[in-house]
């Protein structure tokens, strides 16, 4: 199943009156099937705000988000939690994993939330760990993993429930550039091989260039769409 994402006239204003911050202003864009999009822009330009709204973590103050022609938001907290559980895979900047669980156990968390069959989930977790080169670290506690390993486990976890959209915010913030690049490359490879939409927020232009398309934000608006440098070189 191909996933479509349509964002129309999206707005987010924090606060009101004199303190109001218009963080996202009239943003519209559409993704192409199976696309991996990088969202770049200076600090405070509204990247995280936009990502949070697409991910059902934040209610827009205007406009619409359509995933597979169904509108996100305007629904109850419970519906949003369900939307996140079933449709979205998140990779956060840090503290993704539960520290007292092993890598493998962390992967089972989404399966438990989604009440997937336990045995099937276990096998799926093992497969994902292998794909991300983490089989050896399967039984290591999250706290015993290196930063890069932790982010790769987080990527695996994001894919556990077979999401339609993978949303990533600054996945390499805590990594050196070589390790960061490895993580982003695995992320893109995993997302592409599944026909899932990916959106990654990053400060790092070198990482952004790995994507199919780069959206650049300034002061809450998308100023520039352009193809990633390597878009044509990565086989689909």
């Amino acid at each position: 199943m191909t996933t479509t994402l349509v964002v129309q006239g999206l707005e987010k204003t924090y606060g009101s009156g004199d303190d109001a911050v218009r963080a996202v202003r009239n943003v519209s864009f559409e993704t192409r099937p199976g696309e991996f999009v990088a969202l770049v822009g200076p600090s405070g330009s509204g990247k995280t705000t936009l990502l949070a709204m697409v991910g059902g973590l934040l209610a827009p103050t205007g406009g619409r988000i359509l995933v597979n022609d169904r509108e996100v938001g305007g629904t109850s907290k419970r519906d949003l939690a369900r939307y996140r559980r079933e449709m979205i895979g998140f990779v956060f900047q840090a503290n993704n994993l539960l520290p007292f669980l092993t890598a493998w156990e962390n992967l089972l968390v989404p399966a438990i939330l989604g009440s997937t069959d336990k045995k099937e989930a276990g096998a799926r977790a093992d497969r994902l760990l292998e794909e991300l080169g983490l089989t050896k670290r399967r039984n290591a506690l999250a706290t015993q993993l290196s930063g890069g390993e932790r982010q790769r486990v987080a990527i695996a976890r994001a894919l556990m429930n077979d999401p339609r959209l993978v949303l990533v915010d600054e996945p390499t913030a805590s990594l050196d550039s070589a390790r960061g690049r490895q993580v982003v490359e695995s992320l893109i490879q995993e997302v592409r091989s599944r026909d899932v939409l990916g959106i990654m927020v990053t400060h790092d232009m070198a990482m952004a260039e790995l994507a199919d398309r780069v959206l650049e934000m300034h002061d809450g608006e998308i100023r520039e769409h352009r193809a990633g440098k390597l878009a044509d070189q990565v086989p689909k």
Partner: protein
Amino acid sequence: MKYGGSGDDTPAASIVLLKGDDLPGKKGEGYEVYDKATAFANIEGVSGQQSTVTSLRVFGYLIGALVIGVFFYVLTLQKIPQIGVLKAIGASNLFVFRQILLQVVGISLIGLAISVPLAMLTDAGLRRLPDAVPIAFTTGTFVTTAALLLVTSIVGTAFSARQVIKVDPIIALGQQQ
């Protein structure tokens, strides 16, 4: 038999234990029969001591409850970042709360498994002292205290339910390492 002081004016005060039916309430020259509880309560100092012991016990339970409550509250507060991530990836409040409750009951049971044997040892130790300390640890005390502790922990957890509901899943996006 004569009890009390030697002077004639000194009131003779003492207790003679009697066993039999329908004794309490009988009166005679210079004596009156009470049941045991009333007799103890009327001994000067005993009621005072009793109320001291009772308030010690009540405060003991209250302080215990407070400590347990604060402990689990802090435990929940420390986990707010993790609760944020769990909720962000779609966990319901109910799910998070259930996990906390399970942990609390688990920790409480472990606590009991450690503390009950310790209390028993203390009891045995006190009995061996040459001057026996007048404390009795009865099975009843153990059962009540253990049950109270467990109930307190669970009730205390109810307060962390508010914390859980208050956690906004969006914090998962803002966390630095």
